[in-house]
């Protein structure tokens, strides 16, 4: 997988940080057929996603194939200030993994 699939918008407001996260990923479910060959396209999807802030886990998700293409997640966590860094780690079912960072605005 190409690097940098996550698009993150994190905004500190009051004592909370609102995070909107989108991953650019096909989330192939393994249920679709290739139109030419009639064979099933193997599943390829994100399995795990973890968001850390200042060494503390603030959000984690285990995903199945029924999460839509280009998965989107929104959540809030307490704390966080402008300029803080969020560290996101994702794992694909193929075993591919990557860690990306984003700044809180």
């Amino acid at each position, binding site marked *: 997988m190409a690097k940098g699939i996550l698009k993150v918008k994190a905004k500190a407001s009051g004592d*909370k940080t609102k995070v909107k996260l989108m991953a650019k990923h096909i*989330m192939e*479910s393994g*249920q*679709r*057929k290739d139109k030419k060959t009639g064979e099933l396209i193997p599943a390829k999807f994100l*399995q*795990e996603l*973890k968001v850390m802030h200042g060494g*503390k*886990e*603030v*959000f*984690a*998700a*285990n*995903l*199945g*194939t*029924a*999460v*839509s*293409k280009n*998965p*989107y*997640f*929104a*959540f*809030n*966590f*307490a*704390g966080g200030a402008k300029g803080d860094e969020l560290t996101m780690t994702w*794992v694909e079912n193929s075993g591919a993994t990557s860690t990306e960072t984003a700044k809180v605005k």
Partner: protein
Amino acid sequence: MSMNRRSVVKAIAAGGALVGASVLMPRIAMAAWTTKAFEAEDQATAMNELLGGAAEESAEVTLKAPDIAENGAVVPVTVRSSMAGVESMSIFVENNPNPLVAEFMIPAGTDADVSTRLRMGKTSKVTAVVKANGKLYSASKEVKVTIGGCGG
């Protein structure tokens, strides 16, 4: 006593290991991806594998989803709970080939309020299960799908 213990140990080492692992796994390794739960083909099995039991309906769990989803490939869903001590929130779509959609871990300090988008093959009941203080609570909603998101 010693013989008894030995036989117990043996039993665990042999066939019991599998059962033991599947029962203990979700509790010990909360964040681990549980293949059994995600690949289960009916909702009750998936729920059992993931959370270790069935959930009871609760008014303190809010599931926000559209009444009619025009496109089953992208159904926006929000799960919210007013309860304290929420540990995880999971989403199930009963009529999907694999009902378990996702499980979200809610560490302390994070609001029990998560939005996401999911795929639905056809009209189905969508269930959100919230685990709070070791107990399971749920809310469901029927979502009509006019164009399915699986198959293509």
